[in-house]
């Protein structure tokens, strides 16, 4: 057996698996989106129905807000933790990366514990504040799982910045605020683009959190779920899935071309 044959043999299981369980199902998904009464016109229908459009708009809005806030919080915290050494730093870092392995459902439960009817905020505030099931609750849930992902990417980039860059700016007379704007943030830009794209795509496709919170707003994944299970409208569920997948995939693709290949996973 030659080396080339062996290489092909090594690749064979992967090829078979992804053909059977990725390529063919995706083709089937595309075909079934057109299998309804409307045919391919379903994509036009999707854009005409206010229910789908408003779901899309709300999903985009929440995801964009989460991306902005997660970037702000995680960049601040990430820069601080990457540039300072103090006692307790390791503990703070573990707390901030803890939710990495939490599935969306658990994150939803965390938000219920914070802002649900039996939640902490409701217990300690006199005004009986319940926000878990609102758009704000959903926003907090998405923020909960976005902070660790963004933080890790930003910190990895912050630790790679040549300390001499900052020293050079200071030797030329730059005060700390200028160092931040002229040196640190430009150096972090690719990582922030990458992390922001991941946060955005993850929030767009997040299902578990919305499912647990049983939110009163319609986000796209919940609409797809109800179309499929309750209305048995397979064609529309497929079409919406494809639209959602295209949005998240292209956001990651654009971000990668902007950041030079740093975008890896959507999680």
């Amino acid at each position, binding site marked *: 057996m030659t080396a080339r044959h062996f290489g092909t043999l090594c690749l064979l299981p992967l090829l078979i698996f992804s053909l059977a369980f990725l390529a063919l199902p995706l083709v089937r998904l595309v075909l079934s989106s057109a299998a309804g009464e409307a045919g391919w016109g379903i994509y036009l229908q999707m854009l005409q129905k206010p229910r789908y459009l408003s779901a899309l708009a709300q999903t985009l809005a929440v995801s964009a807000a989460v991306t902005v806030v997660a970037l702000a919080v995680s960049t601040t915290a990430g820069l601080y933790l990457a540039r300072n050494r103090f006692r307790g730093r390791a503990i703070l870092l573990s707390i901030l990366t803890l939710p990495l392995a939490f599935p969306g459902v658990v994150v939803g439960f965390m938000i219920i514990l914070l802002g649900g009817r039996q939640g902490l905020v409701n217990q300690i505030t006199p005004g009986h504040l319940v926000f878990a099931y609102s758009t704000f609750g959903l926003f907090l849930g998405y923020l909960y799982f976005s902070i660790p992902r963004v933080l890790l990417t930003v910190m990895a980039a912050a630790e790679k910045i*040549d300390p*001499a*860059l900052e*020293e*050079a*700016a*200071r*030797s*030329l*007379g*730059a*005060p700390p605020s*200028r160092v931040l704007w*002229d*040196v640190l943030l*430009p*150096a972090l*830009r690719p990582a922030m683009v990458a992390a922001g794209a991941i946060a955005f795509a993850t929030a767009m496709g997040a299902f578990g959190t919305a499912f647990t919170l049983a939110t009163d707003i319609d986000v796209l994944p919940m609409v797809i779920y109800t179309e499929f299970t309750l209305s048995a409208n397979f064609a529309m569920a497929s079409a919406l899935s494809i639209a959602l997948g295209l949005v998240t995939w292209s956001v990651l693709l654009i971000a990668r071309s902007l950041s030079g290949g740093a975008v890896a996973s959507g999680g």
Partner: protein
Amino acid sequence: MTLTLTCVAKTYGSGPRALHPTDLRIETGEILSLLGPSGCGKTTLLRLIAGLEEADPGAEIRFGDEDVTHLPVERRHIGMVFQSYALFPNMSVRDNIGYGLRMQRLPRAEIRSRVEEVIALCRLEPYADRAITALSGGQRQRVALARAFAPRPRIMLLDEPLSALDAALRLALRDELAALLRSFGTTVIFVTHDQDEALAISDRVAVMEAGQIRQIGTPEELYRAPRSPFVAEFVGHAMPLAGARRVGGLHLAGGILPLPAEAGPGPVYVRAEDLRLDPHGPLRACVDSVTFLGTHYRLGLSALTDQRLYALHHGQSAPRVGEAVTLSIAPEALICLPL
């Protein structure tokens, strides 16, 4: 701008002293290099002068009449060239060079004219609008120099500015750098571990070892009159001639070497280029190795002292390995160190 350091020392955390208390005075327009092996404290000293590190209590650093000991780097008004150059990748060559001037909030027109001036001085015109990533190593070095010089700093500090370049380029840029630094006319402190660089560029060299300045002087002084074994060996690779002092001179394993009358009781050193093959010489040695290096041969010699010595031999042919040779050393070439 004269620079005066008094009792400047540095200790990192609870570790050993990186720099022992040091006094140093550098005159206006002088180019001084700090020369020494890695870990000798030369970069620490440079960073203390820059204000990137804070000296241990009791130190005083004066730029001219001004005490800058407690000023942070951004207020010391120095120009620094970093080992990695630390050019801002998000700015063009022109913006990098103008950065220090922008920090001084000078009027735009003045910034522009001064940047152009420095660009012309450093012959960077063809690259002025390029991105940093589109420059070669040598060009980056010139941009780093131009950026540090543009705000007209009181003192220029250079941290191993040639070490990021490959050997051939380093040699070519060494003389160019020396010429540029002279044309700036500012006080320059230059850190290097390469003795050739230090000798070629500076007015005075401070040789450092283990957190201390061992000797300071002009390149010629250091080369011809080192005052300690370390300086003799580090500057110009002098080799010790270990033997007993008796009547007639220095008794080596390979013969008796006459010493000049004024030689003190300290150790005696010689450089490879001064150890000559001489059929009538007083010393005998055995040839261990012969390396042909183009302009000359490098001979490894044993049995002259108990350690292997080298001799440079200019000539059309060389002795063979295993041959016995006789050698001589001109009395004025001997380096007699104080005890």
